[in-house]
């Protein structure tokens, strides 16, 4: 696909503004507090939009559209079950302790509440996780730019990282927050017309639903799933879940969604992940800090229209095959292509079956039998032009590249101009993901690792210098992670898995720490350690249907010399997603029970006075009377929750 001058102009304007914001903020960066905490001066609406934008990384636009196509409307559970309730909980119950304790980071809260060990454990695992999240995001971006525009992978990766580096280096967290707000509007305004055109083309929501019910009964036709389902499997959020794992394409049951996703993973992410919590902690006062997640929840609630609907539209369009549209096939590696051509040539004269197998082995993907047979015939009849040959091999791939769904729609509907805008929106989403992770990483490194253990009593200027230096290091490490994860195709599953390892047990520690004063430092530390180890153990012992033992789980069985057939059946889950949700639930329960048990057996090391402001029962209640009733977090939170219930019922 070729871009016109106007498209580049739109991108340049955007890049100019984000870098410009960084430079404009440079003169305000006087102390480390300015650099890492934005001087606690951000208005609530800005913090709120940055909060949601930091979460709008690769996971959202690309991953959610992919899931929308793969699983249909049930993907909305990541929003209406897996986000809003946790965001409300953070605002109403947890923000007073984060903001009120004057901790500068989530790990620092753990130090104040428990001790250094828990902080060290949390900050190290968090640092590793943010680097991976940022790497995954940048890898996805560079891959898309490479596949779609033919840009060089390495060059795209380095240039985009350099832009992020430039503005974070200059303006620190403020720069990241401000550009996140800009990116938020860019993303919404860049994708809205694409969704509108897609919806108009399909003929409205009614037609989408009708098409989805046809797809559900024969998803094999679009290579979406090997099984067949009830008509509502793609267009109802709850009914297929309640019917059991074999009745919905996610392969999960309602308990895994409600407990695993809705409680453990979601609360673990939204309430303890410093990436998002940092935005609220930068707010100008307590009331702004508490309102931050609530303001963020409003766009979050309606985002499925922007990010999940495109996936469903793509399925509906592919079903009708209008204008030759199909779900984008997985891209054949340029390295494998030569072997595929040889396989096609050598298959002349063979029977259709062995020809297909040969070509499929060369590309590494499942191929269409009829298309490969036709290609073999045509090649045997006379030489084809190289480009035609390449296109036809690519076209014969059956497996879908779900991560390419959103871009296939952009390509289909956007004329030059709008194309530039939509691509810029995509760029913005990846950059906000990376900048968010990098600012969280540099704060945790500088305050929780460097200042705490390596260089205790240095000047403020020294820590600010370290913050800048580690921003560069963080971005370089993200790039390393990007190259590492470029081997894996499903970024979303990996991110969920990492969250499972790190975040799932963590919420148990916070829950007990904040709401039960009897929780001891020993309990917290060993509970958290045990919980994290429990996730690793669970992952090493469990697998999902259709996966080989190995990196996706069950490697301990490999080491023990047990193969897939003879490992216990109850450890094989119906899908990757079910495995992740159960892993999270297991890790949480382990951490919770260990922390409870050990706390009861050990002595408290902190007095009630020391815990004031850190534990619910020892802290004076937040008085909201100064605010009008409709501005109180509890009231706003209840309204949001009610809205969520209504949405769930509407799409039941």
């Amino acid at each position: 696909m070729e871009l016109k001058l106007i498209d580049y102009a739109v991108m340049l304007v955007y890049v100019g503004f984000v870098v410009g914001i960084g430079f404009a903020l440079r003169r305000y960066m006087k102390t480390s507090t300015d650099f890492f905490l934005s001087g606690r001066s951000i208005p609530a609406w800005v913090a709120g939009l940055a909060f949601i934008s930091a979460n709008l990384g690769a996971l959202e636009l690309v991953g959610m559209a992919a899931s929308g196509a793969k699983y249909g409307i049930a993907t909305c559970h990541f929003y209406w079950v897996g986000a809003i309730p946790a965001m409300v909980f953070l605002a109403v119950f947890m923000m007073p302790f984060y903001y009120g304790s004057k901790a500068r980071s989530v790990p620092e809260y753990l130090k104040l509440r428990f001790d250094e060990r828990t902080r060290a454990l949390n900050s190290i695992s968090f640092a590793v996780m943010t680097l991976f999240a940022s790497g995954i995001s940048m890898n996805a971006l560079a891959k898309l730019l490479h596949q779609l525009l033919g840009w060089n992978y390495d060059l795209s990766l380095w240039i985009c990282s350099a832009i992020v580096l430039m503005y974070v280096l200059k303006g620190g967290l403020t720069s990241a927050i401000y550009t996140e707000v800009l990116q938020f509007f860019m993303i919404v305004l860049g994708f809205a017309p694409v969704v509108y055109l897609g919806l108009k083309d399909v003929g409205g929501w009614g037609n989408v639903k009708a098409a989805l019910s046809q797809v559900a009964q024969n998803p094999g036709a679009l290579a979406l799933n090997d099984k067949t389902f009830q008509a509502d499997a793609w267009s109802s959020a709850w009914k297929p879940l309640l019917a059991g794992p074999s009745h919905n394409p996610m392969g999960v049951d309602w308990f895994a969604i409600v407990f695993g996703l809705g409680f453990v993973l979601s609360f673990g992410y939204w309430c303890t992940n410093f990436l998002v919590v940092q935005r609220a902690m930068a707010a100008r006062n307590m009331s702004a800090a508490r309102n931050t997640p609530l303001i963020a929840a409003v766009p979050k609630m309606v985002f499925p229209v922007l990010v999940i609907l495109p996936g469903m539209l793509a399925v509906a369009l592919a079903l009708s095959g209008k204008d030759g549209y199909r779900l984008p096939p997985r891209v054949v590696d340029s390295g494998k292509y030569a072997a595929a051509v040889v396989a096609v040539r050598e298959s002349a004269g063979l029977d259709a079956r062995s020809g297909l197998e040969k070509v499929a082995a060369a590309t590494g993907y499942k191929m269409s039998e009829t298309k490969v047979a036709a290609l073999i015939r045509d090649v045997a009849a006379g030489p084809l032009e190289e480009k035609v040959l390449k296109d036809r091999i690519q076209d014969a791939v059956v497996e879908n590249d779900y991560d390419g769904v959103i871009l296939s729609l952009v390509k289909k509907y956007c004329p030059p101009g709008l194309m530039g805008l939509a691509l810029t929106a995509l760029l913005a989403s990846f950059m906000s993901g990376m900048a968010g992770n990098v600012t969280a990483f540099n704060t945790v490194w500088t305050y929780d690792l460097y200042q705490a253990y390596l260089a205790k009593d240095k000047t403020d200027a020294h820590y600010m210098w370290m913050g800048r230096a580690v921003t560069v290091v963080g971005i370089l490490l993200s790039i390393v992670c990007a190259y590492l994860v470029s081997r894996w195709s499903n970024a979303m599953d990996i991110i969920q898995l990492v969250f499972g390892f790190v975040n799932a047990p963590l919420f148990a520690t916070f829950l007990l720490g904040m709401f039960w004063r009897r929780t001891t430092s020993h309990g917290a530390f060993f509970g958290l350690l045990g919980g994290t180890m429990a996730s690793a153990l669970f992952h090493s012992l469990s697998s999902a249907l259709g996966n080989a033992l190995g990196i996706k789980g069950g490697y301990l069985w490999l080491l023990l010399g047990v193969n897939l057939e003879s490992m216990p059946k109850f450890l094989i889950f119906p899908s990757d997603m079910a495995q992740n949700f159960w892993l999270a639930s297991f890790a949480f329960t382990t951490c919770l029970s260990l922390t409870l048990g050990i706390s009861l057996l050990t002595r408290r090391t902190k007095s009630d006075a020391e815990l004031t402001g850190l534990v619910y029962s020892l802290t004076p209640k937040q008085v909201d009377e100064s605010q009008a009733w409709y501005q109180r977090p509890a009231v706003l939170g209840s309204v949001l929750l009610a809205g969520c219930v209504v949405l769930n019922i509407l799409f039941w």
Partner: protein
Amino acid sequence: MGLDIRIPIGMMFTILGLLLSGYGMVTASDSALYARSLGINVNICWGAALLLFGLVMLAFSLPAFFKKK
């Protein structure tokens, strides 16, 4: 923090709106170009929307701007 974020946001979308709608007007006669977007000249429509959004953002930032002066 000293910078009012509404100003750069407003400025950026004003520029983008002008760019897009300008390009839409120049290419208005090229119906093949807009076949993709279902025959709608989305550059003009959406460019105008962006321009409006940009101006509204700038308008919101005005009172604070003058107060500071």
